[in-house]
């Protein structure tokens, strides 16, 4: 044994020491560096900031200008595009009266001191709104050559809004997101289907999130010392000041945004996700087999988790941390290890839920209520759902840096689909209350109706018809991916998602990139599937409209044949029908929606006959299948697909069974009777 051990030990050690997820890129291309110093004035709710930005031209173009986002200007007045589109109401939250927010750039210079502030202009590339100041452009005195770089020094002040649309303050709670002048993305020709290179820098819309390039952030945050602070990336330094303030320095590379939070009331809960303890060898093995990767490639990394929770939510601390661990584990096993050393979860202050449910690199905001502390409402797993979902954005938005302005489904839809898969392996249901159970996917199904037939999923986030952004960014893509999974099978789908993530980690893919990966991994052309469910409006609703079996009555009358004339009376025919017992069965299918995908239909027969499978071809709007055989068709069932908006018409049986209808009609009657009794009867 000893020689064998000597021979294999180095290999074993090498395998254990090998970097996790060898197939995954270790580093993002460093397009931008931000070195920021910011000071919080908690009484004025204001930030005083200074940043040095280095931008490296990733294209073969000579770039004459720089485009910036000044997101906080979305909250400057009622004239902004954001306000006009939202009416001051977003995500069930109202903008506070006169709680405006804005950014003033006070100095803008090249590193050599050349002043650029006078050349700064506000742009409105999406709607031409001259009052919108969420995008700024600066013409450079010297264009940036291909592969070259430019360094800018910017000084600015930011007035934070009362918490609204993810950012702002509430009393002493500060959620500081979209807070600094931030470069847009220069897309070279060929990326995301671009014919020519150019800046992609959209205005801040009511229904849009963000898009930025990868790089390194080093941020020094100075706050009064009573504040507890959390931020993107690990803390590398803490410097007490002489004026009652403390400066916290955070650094993180391979990210495209930076956010931070401060609140004196935060309780800091620390834990660690252990790649050894929190994942069993069997789970590693199963994941490796599922995604068809070597064991070493699915190995995860330890993550330091910090939960900044409000004191009266402390009983839920474990739930938040465990949910984060579930996310790190399953997203990591399925798509690739979470590469950052830290994860910070922020629990917004009371009344600041507008800041909840949001993702930033390595920092997410959850959102809960003291009501969920104890029985019975602790069975509502909203904190878990939100934590897992926002963590999941580290993968779909964070590491796979999709353009949320233009293709929001690539982050929200992918992440909703992934969240539900993590939910399903982690919790029995998202709500278990007095015998009533509610599963996460049900909300999407309930939103899927005929009124959803007007928009296509792949639409700029401000281009949906009213009220359709949420469904078409979150629910429909999630249902579509579930339908793709039902079509390809769980294993192939897992490999599609894994390959897509690996290939575009730290990249900026488009929908077309995903279509290509899916077709490649599935080994079949899936473009028609995506054309119908993502690129076109319309709903999927295939229905079995008829299942009928009647006994065949032989021909009657004076019948001529090769054996001569023969008279068959009705009585003879009935007897023959009884003896022979042949049945003529009819199955009818119809496409009630616009989406026409091939689908397998299972036909079941009585008398123990084996079921038969047939395909309802996509070219047909309807089909009628007839059988004449000894067995009757008892049911016809279309293979389940989450996107189909009516499960009840996906299958039909020949004989009715009224039990379910009677059971719930009786309960409805009971409810109505209670209401009448309440009226004094």
């Amino acid at each position: 044994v000893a020689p064998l051990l000597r021979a294999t030990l180095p290999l074993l050690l090498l395998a254990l020491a090998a970097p996790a997820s060898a197939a995954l890129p270790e580093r993002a291309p460093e397009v931008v560096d931000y070195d920021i110093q910011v000071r919080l004035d908690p009484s004025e709710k204001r930030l005083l900031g200074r940043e040095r930005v280095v931008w490296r031209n990733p294209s073969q173009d000579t770039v004459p200008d720089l485009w910036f986002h000044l997101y906080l200007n979305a909250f400057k007045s009622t004239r902004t595009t954001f306000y006009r589109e939202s009416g001051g109401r977003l995500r069930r939250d109202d903008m506070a009266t006169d709680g405006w927010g804005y950014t003033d750039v006070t100095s803008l210079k090249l590193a050599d001191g050349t002043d650029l502030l006078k050349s700064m202009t506000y742009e409105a590339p999406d709607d031409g709104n001259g009052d919108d100041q969420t995008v700024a452009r600066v013409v450079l005195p010297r264009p940036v050559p291909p592969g070259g770089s430019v360094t800018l020094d910017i000084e600015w002040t930011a007035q934070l809004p009362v918490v609204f649309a993810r950012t702002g303050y509430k009393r002493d709670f500060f959620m500081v997101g979209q807070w600094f002048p931030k470069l847009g993305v220069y897309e070279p020709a060929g990326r995301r289907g671009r014919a020519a290179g150019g800046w992609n820098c959209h205005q801040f819309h009511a229904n849009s999130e963000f898009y930025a390039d990868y790089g390194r952030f080093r941020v020094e945050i100075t706050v009064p010392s009573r504040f507890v602070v959390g931020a993107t990336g690990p803390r590398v330094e803490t410097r007490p000041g002489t004026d009652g303030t403390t400066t916290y320095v955070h650094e993180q590379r391979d990210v495209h945004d930076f956010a931070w939070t401060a609140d004196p009331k935060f309780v800091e809960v620390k834990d660690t996700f252990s790649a050894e303890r929190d994942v069993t060898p069997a789970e590693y093995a199963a994941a490796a087999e599922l995604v068809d990767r070597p064991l070493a490639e699915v190995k995860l990394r330890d993550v330091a988790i910090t939960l900044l929770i409000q004191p009266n939510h402390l009983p839920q601390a474990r739930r938040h941390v465990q949910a984060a661990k579930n996310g790190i584990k399953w997203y990591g096993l399925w798509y690739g290890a979470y590469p950052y050393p830290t994860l910070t979860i922020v629990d917004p202050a009371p009344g600041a839920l507008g800041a909840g449910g949001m993702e930033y690199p390595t920092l997410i905001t959850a959102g809960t209520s003291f009501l969920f502390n104890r029985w019975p409402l602790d069975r509502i797993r909203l904190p878990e759902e939100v934590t897992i979902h926002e963590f999941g954005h580290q993968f779909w938005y964070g590491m796979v840096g999709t353009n949320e302005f233009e293709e929001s489904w690539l982050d929200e839809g992918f992440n909703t689909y992934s969240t539900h898969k993590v939910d399903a392996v982690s919790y029995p249901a998202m709500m278990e209350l007095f015998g009533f159970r509610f599963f996460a996917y049900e909300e999407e199904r309930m939103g899927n109706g005929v009124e959803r037939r007007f928009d296509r999923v792949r639409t700029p986030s401000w281009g949906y018809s009213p009220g359709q952004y949420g469904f078409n960014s979150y629910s429909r893509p999630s249902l579509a991916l579930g339908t793709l999974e039902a079509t390809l099978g769980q294993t192939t789908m897992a490999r599609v998602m894994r390959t897509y993530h690996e290939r575009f980690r730290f990249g900026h893919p488009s929908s077309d990139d995903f279509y290509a990966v899916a077709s490649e991994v599935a080994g079949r052309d899936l473009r028609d599937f995506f054309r119908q469910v993502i690129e076109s409006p319309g709903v999927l609703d295939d229905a079995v409209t008829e299942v009928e079996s009647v006994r065949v009555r032989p021909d009657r009358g004076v019948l001529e044949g090769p054996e001569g004339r023969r008279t068959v009376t009705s009585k003879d025919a009935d007897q023959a029908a009884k003896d022979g017992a042949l049945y003529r069965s009819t199955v009818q299918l119809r496409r009630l929606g616009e989406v026409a995908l091939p689908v397998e239909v299972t036909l079941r027969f009585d008398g123990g006959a084996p079921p038969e499978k047939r395909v309802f071809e996509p070219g047909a709007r309807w089909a009628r299948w007839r059988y004449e055989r000894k067995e009757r068709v008892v049911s016809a069932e279309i293979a389940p697909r989450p996107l189909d908006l009516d499960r009840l018409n996906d299958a039909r049986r020949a004989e009715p069974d009224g039990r379910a209808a009677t059971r719930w009609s009786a309960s409805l009657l009971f409810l109505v009777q209670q209401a009448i009794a309440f009226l004094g009867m």
Partner: protein
Amino acid sequence: MFLKDALRGIARGFRKRRLAALLWLLNLLLALPVVLPVAAHLRRQLAFSPAGDALLGGFSASLFQEAMRAPQSPSRAIPLLFATMAALALLVNALSAGGVLAVLQGTGEGPLLRRFGQGAGRFFGRFLRAGLAAGLVGGILVAILGVLFGASERFEDSAWEPMRLVLFLGRVAIAGLVLVAVLTALDYARIALAAEDSHGAVGAYFRALAMVVRHPVATLGAWAVNAAVVAGVMTLYAGLTRNWTPSTGAAILLLVVLQQLLMWFRAIVRVGLWSTEIDVLARLLPAPARVADDAALETIAAS
């Protein structure tokens, strides 16, 4: 005192089971027009659908919604049906109250149905007017509460997280108390009208309301005991159905029978409340009314 009154009333309610059965039947007849179209639609949707059988294992919000949004669904008509039913229920309430009081107070002659019918017809107009007065008072109080609740909204933005819930519960409690007071006063007004056979319905309502305000424990206490009894029984039912998912035909039939027995029980408790309120009114009102009520009570005791 009010506990004894209430329990004695419920005991009387049990002795008037047939009267309660009549109330249950009226309730059922009012509910059926709303439920039958839905039931027929559910049958169309679920009977031929194997997917619908999942509802036998427990309620599924998404599946139920899919059933209700299918073509030919009556879901759009349900609000109208419900509103019609509520309006009808208020009218039938004015009718049935007369019938119940006629039976309980021993006016009229003959079999139960005849006495019930006589009472219903005799008092309907007066009871309806009293009901309208109650509606008017209720409307005014709702408007006042709306202003008060609106003013309390500025306390919602508080660093103390439970504040929003406390305010909500406070509003529900206040609105509930006001509603119960308005409806309880309507009961007392009707009892007084029937006992005195008087015609001043609106005046009777305001006198009854004043009495309820002066004696909230005696009047609303009896209501609270009855409400607690009903809530207790419904909690037991909820506990049972939480752990029991009837899926066979026999089990579903058993569930239907149980539900209707519970509705009958609610009717018994309602008759009991009327009976209690007759007692309370007899104790709280001046002599002329008491004479009438004592006579009524003697009749009840003899029956």
